[in-house]
């Protein structure tokens, strides 16, 4: 029994050693993702899924899109979705009307929006003030060229499993994609969403006038949401390609499948 236990002892010993002796950080494996990044990531995931489901429910009540200030069943749409509607008023071409889900969908849509906006704000402040943005999101110095960009695209198009080193850092395309989502798509989806609020635009009319009208804002909100869904699909696809469980675990517990320094020697 004593000999068996000694097999497992080194880890436990080093763990307790690092806890009691404050000057032994070398034995601890750093977290792949900081706690704040992990928590905000999953809150954002939950909110995004809630926004997506409720957004689809709201669209179902009027699956027609317009450009300009106004639009209704008497005006010509820019395009329409060929799906059944939850309102008899809409000529959907289907012989039935879906149940109305707008009430709870709107409540949940705005609640999720509040939570994700506040979470996003916290994340962005963290990213600016801790160096997360500079270290992990902005392209590294060697990558700041068009040539590096084309190389990265060519490499990515081969759809190979990424090298193990990438379990510890984002590659150029990842960085650009994340920056685009955080600093372009999220602000755009918030802006186009607020531009549909009659009370908000009564105070800030420029928010909707600059987009060409309230119905234009609604149509743009739909397209920006589609872009975010596209990002989600590619993101999850890439996680599968890289190893779903190891990458997901790293985003939940912070532990990566490999240690950051040893891996290069083990897998040349």
């Amino acid at each position: 029994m004593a000999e068996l236990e000694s097999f497992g002892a080194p880890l436990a010993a080093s763990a307790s050693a690092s806890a009691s002796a404050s000057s032994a950080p070398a034995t601890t494996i750093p977290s792949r993702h900081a706690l704040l990044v992990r928590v905000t990531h999953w809150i954002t995931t939950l909110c995004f899924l809630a926004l997506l489901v409720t957004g689809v429910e709201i669209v179902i009540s009027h699956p027609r899109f317009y450009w300009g200030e106004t639009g209704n069943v008497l005006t010509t749409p820019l395009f329409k979705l060929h799906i059944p509607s939850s309102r008899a008023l809409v000529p959907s071409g289907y012989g039935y009307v879906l149940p109305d889900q707008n009430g709870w969908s709107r409540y949940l849509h705005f609640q999720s929006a509040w939570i994700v906006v506040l979470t996003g704000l916290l994340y962005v402040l963290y990213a600016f003030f801790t160096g997360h943005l500079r270290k992990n999101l902005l392209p590294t110095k060697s990558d700041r060229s068009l040539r590096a960009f084309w190389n990265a695209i060519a490499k990515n198009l081969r759809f190979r499993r990424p090298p193990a080193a990438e379990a510890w850092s984002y590659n150029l395309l990842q960085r650009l994609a994340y920056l685009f989502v955080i600093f372009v798509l999220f602000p755009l989806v918030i802006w186009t969403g607020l531009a549909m609020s009659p009370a908000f635009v009564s105070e800030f009319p420029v928010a909707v006038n600059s987009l060409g009208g309230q119905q234009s804002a609604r149509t743009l909100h739909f397209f920006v949401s589609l872009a975010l869904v596209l990002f989600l699909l590619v993101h999850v696809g890439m996680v599968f390609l890289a190893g779903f469980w190891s990458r997901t675990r790293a985003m939940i517990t912070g532990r990566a499948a490999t240690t950051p320094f040893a891996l290069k020697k083990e897998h040349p």
Partner: protein
Amino acid sequence: MNNLSRRKLIGTGLAATAGAAGLGVAARLAQKYGLVPPDHGGIFGLGETLTYASQRLLTSHSQAREFSPSQVSKPPLANEMAPLPDVFKRLQAGGFADWRLSIDGLVDRPASFSLAQLKSYPSRSHITMIQCEEGWSYIAEWIGVPLHHVLDAVGVQPHARYVVYFSIDKYWWDSIDMADAAHPQTFLAYGMNGDELPVGNGGPLRMRVPRQLGYKNVKFITHLTVTDSLKRFGKGLGSASPESGYAWYAGI
């Protein structure tokens, strides 16, 4: 327990206490300044309260966007409607000559007005958008008497906080806070696009609240009550909307 974790524990405890106290103070202040909507309970209360409180703070004196006559939607859309009650049809047959709007509650002089009396007050109009929560919208010229004008005529008492309004269809009622009730663009509308307000758009009398979505603009108004609390109306959620799952505040 070593020093580090004790310090952490005390720190966390202090932060949690400060946070809880902060939330408590915020809730008291929000209640005091009328920033808590009547449907603040339940799982969506947080989002609803944040929306209502922030929009109330931001938009207390803002004006809904107005449009030019060339932007008026032709023809205006008349939304689908539940069948009208017999009492409405009888009044309609008489050209709405016997239509009455009664006002009671926290007012000095409870009163009842005919349409002709309402029309004798200074008439105002604005060209604004009506926006349905479903996603469609239209622009029309709305003609009516500003609600604050009628409220001034009956003398609203100082502790009034909401105006509750009822349709002739008794299942349809709603309420707005005094910020919206006293707002210059909030009308008891009786006309549209230079003409009488069509029945399909809420004629002969419709509440017009342009800073909120379509469903706050209740059609066929017959009764107003001024109150300091919404608790004794229906289920106490402020209007018929939350009772069927929709938010009381519809500024978004």
